[in-house]
């Protein structure tokens, strides 16, 4: 089954960077993943978050409030 990755953020610069980082990490890890960007607030608030950007892997909040590094995401995916 493909890994599901969601990036939560209302579309600010940090959120966009996070999306790019995740895309790169998935490419480098060479795995199957559905990357989804969640920008609407209601969808975002289903998760219990306070700061953005947030990275959710398989419905589990992994990173919140900061831009991760490619390495970090790769470690999360393995």
């Amino acid at each position: 089954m493909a890994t599901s990755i969601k990036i939560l953020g209302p579309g600010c610069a940090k959120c966009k960077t996070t999306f790019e980082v995740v895309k790169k990490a998935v490419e480098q890890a060479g795995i199957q993943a559905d990357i989804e960007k969640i920008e609407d607030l209601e969808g975002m608030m289903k998760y219990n978050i306070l700061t953005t950007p947030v990275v959710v892997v398989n419905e589990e909040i992994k990173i919140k409030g900061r831009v991760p590094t490619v390495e970090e995401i790769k470690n999360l995916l393995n």
Partner: protein
Amino acid sequence: MFNWLQQLADWLVYSVLGISAQSHFGEALNFFVYDTIKILILLFFITFLMGIVNSYFPIDRIRNFLSRNKLYGAEYLMASTFGAVTPFCSCSSVPLFIGFVKGGIPLGVTFAFLITSPLVNEVAVAIFLGMFGLKATLVYVISGILLGVISGAILGRMNLEPLLTDWVRKVWEQARAEQEAFASEKTSFIQRIPTIVKEAFGIVKSVFVYVLIGIAIGAAMHGYVPEGFFEQYIGRDTWYAVPLAVVLGVPMYANAAGVIPVVQVFVSKGMPIGTSLAFMMAVVGLSIPEATLLKKVMTTKLVLIFFGVVATCIMFSGYLFNIIL
């Protein structure tokens, strides 16, 4: 602390470039070189320090604490202070707002947080420190926090919950004190440093242009505008100066980094400090982009009330500073 830098600027402008220290241009250029380097150093250090604080700042736990405990008014001060230490990213303010509402934290307390969060931020503090020194920076930070407390308390008494947008009101009605535990991240301090440095560089890079423009305008004015120029027009006795400063300040935002160096010259040329502080607070604390974001969770009426109350409090503090400073 920055003597060496002044010497460097003197040497560069007067000796290397051979521009006379007596000329307007020489004075302006010296001012520009000195201030730019100083601000960049401060900006990097302060964003770096704040980055470390933020990396460890347990915002979730603080939300839980605020929602569980009755603090008899101290919760406003707590929320406002936390607003000062959390990073400013306007796009985080809305999720944060909803998160607070969801946790059953009173609206007024949430507002206190929301006011100080942009008002006292690392970029403004760094530039303030560079342009006005430590004492004025402390005045700014403390009055910013108090402003959040007072405006929040006023807004808290106005029963504004019905003015939230529908779905946020639903969230509010189902609010409960959060009990869940949060898994904290387990990265060591050393592991966090590269990310923090990178973010500090990112922030410095993103405001760099505004700082340069602000200092350039300031430097030009510094050399050419006569001493006491502003005293003639907007002195202490001009009653409308403070409201005018606030009204002009609210729509400016992106330029916060650039506005402070310009205002510093206003002050050195005779603009009263209270009027200047009010202007800067309006620039940094209230902005149109923020209003647009807040409209997602509040009705237009509530956004207007929010801005109105904060702007009024800023005006009062402007008058107050004109009297006491």
